[in-house]
């Protein structure tokens, strides 16, 4: 009873976590990325096409990563080089890419909504003998796909890189002290672009996880607002990788729970509201804490 729920929760967490890590790095670099959803959608479509064409999961993932990164780069260049407001550009990308994807599906593949080419190869599952039979632990560790392992491995890696390496320091400088970074001869805009490309690549993988990791086809609504849930996750995590992962896990759990509760009297719509509500509550709590701190110091 509990094992399938745990397994489903982790499966639902993976795309949110991947995109959230990308968005977190992007935000540390100085851009709030509202366009994650568009990069996810691109990755999901590209992964299905390449997987069906080549039969190779590795190539499919690589293509999704590159495609997401390209969308990220385009968005970043508009923001950093043309001084455009990142929120509006992000929303614009969400609208334009969603339209473009559906346009191409109809125009090139002659399908509407769902694209299910023959021969899509799915992500493999990694079963771990012995552990697989242990209750709970088996559900957590065994039978997961490589992207899930990758997503969780990226949490400590991101934490380490941001906190302890030169690369991380430069990125943080680009985000919070642009002028200082420039004065030191660094190129904060380039760091910022790199962080958006990273966010795009991670979101592309997140999309690939949805399309060739979970369902094995592409649907225009496949991302279902997960790019915005990922945004909620890194706001929940206040730019800390582990806390962001916790947020992603929480939202993944809600999603799994909501699927289980369907047809049992709990309206799905109300459960789907929870991540967004939690973010507002977290921001409220933060605001209150800030006010108390500044109130006591003055």
């Amino acid at each position: 009873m509990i094992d399938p729920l745990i397994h489903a929760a982790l499966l639902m967490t993976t795309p949110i976590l991947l995109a959230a890590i990308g968005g977190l790095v992007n935000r540390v670099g100085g851009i709030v990325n509202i366009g994650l959803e568009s990069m996810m959608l691109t990755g999901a479509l590209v992964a299905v096409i390449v997987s069906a064409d080549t039969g190779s999961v590795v190539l499919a993932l690589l293509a999704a990563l590159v495609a997401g990164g390209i969308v990220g780069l385009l968005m970043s260049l508009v923001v950093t080089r043309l001084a455009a407001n990142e929120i509006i550009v992000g929303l614009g990308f969400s609208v334009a890419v969603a339209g473009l994807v559906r346009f191409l599906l109809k125009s090139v593949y002659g399908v509407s909504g769902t694209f299910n080419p023959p021969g899509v190869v799915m992500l493999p599952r990694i079963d771990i003998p012995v552990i697989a039979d242990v209750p709970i632990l088996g559900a957590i560790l065994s039978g997961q796909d490589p992207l899930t392992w990758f997503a969780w491995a990226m949490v400590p890696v991101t934490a380490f890189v941001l906190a302890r390496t030169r690369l991380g320091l430069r990125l943080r400088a680009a985000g919070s002290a642009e002028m200082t970074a420039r004065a030191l001869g660094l190129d904060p805009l380039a760091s910022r672009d790199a962080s958006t490309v990273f966010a795009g690549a991670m979101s592309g993988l997140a999309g690939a996880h949805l399309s060739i990791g979970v369902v094995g086809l592409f649907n225009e609504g496949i991302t279902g607002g997960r790019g915005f849930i990922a945004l909620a996750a890194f706001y929940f995590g206040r730019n800390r990788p582990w806390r962001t992962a916790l947020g992603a896990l929480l939202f993944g759990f809600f999603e799994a729970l909501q699927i289980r509760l369907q047809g049992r009297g709990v309206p799905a719509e109300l459960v789907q509201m929870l991540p967004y509500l939690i973010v507002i509550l977290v921001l409220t709590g933060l605001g209150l804490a800030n006010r108390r701190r500044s109130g006591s110091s003055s």
Partner: protein
Amino acid sequence: MIRAALANLAAAALPFVLALAIGAIVLAVTGHDPLSVYALMASEAFGGTRRIAATLTATTPLLLTGLATAIAFRAGVFNVGVEGCFYLGGLAAATLGFWLVGWPAIAIIPVALLAGALIGGAWMVAPATLKVRLGVDEVVTTLMLNFIAVNLTSWLVNGPLLARGSANSATPAIEKTAELPRLLPPSTLHLGFIISLALVILYGFWDRFTVTGFRSRLVGLNARFCRAVGIDVPSLLFRMMILSGLIGGLAGAIHALGLVHRFVAGFSPGYGFTGIAVALLGRNSALGMILAALVFGALASSGATIQLFSDVPIEIVEVLQGTVMIFAVAKLGLLLRDRRGLA
């Protein structure tokens, strides 16, 4: 003077021209002839009274979502939550529209419109309070509230407010008396267009000739200066955000009573977000926003019919809308300056 105005117009039209260019590339790559597609779209949007009426119908919600966005943006508040207000206002008006059985039109229409506006305004109280009291970023809260509003209304029309015997998520149809009168039957153009247009024009006067209008613009330009000269900035921001919500709610209410005549799940195909593009492209000015809303209205109404007469999918309209949004905020002049810098 005229040259300056023309230069302004050219600068404002540039994002749209660039979007058309990108749309043309997409069309050409997928084997369509961009020029004939655009020509067909233009004739579908403006060729004849009926087509113009359809375009004006599609323009109606955008006038008000653009206005709602502009009122917040010009005061320096990044309210991206008009979409949520639109949903809630639409649901409130539609619900009263079928509940108040037997009310005469003169009573039911104002009450339903007012209710829609009020709920939109009330929806903005939380993010406005959070912003002015606790300094919580309104972009995130209003964006999140959109998803909450969409889910909340879709739960209501799937459960408590679902029309009896209806399989799809919709409320019952509103009373005949609650429907806004049609202006040019048999076209769907309704009184809401006049109301919306009047409000945008009213906004133009408010913007130019009133103290509050001036002050709220000033706050958007330089909040520190305003604080220094004694303008109560937090209170002004709060009021502008609520006003933005009121108008967003009214937009939804008008859409429900004027066109849809009920509330359905997926009530808005992103009118709130297109409103952002309208406000940006129109540079928050009344005339600019009317033109921008007309452009997007034309895109929407022609997109719906080119699909019938050609094999071009309607989604080309979304591609154009999104790219207009992107280019509307990009400082395109920097492109030229960079090149000069390199040379």
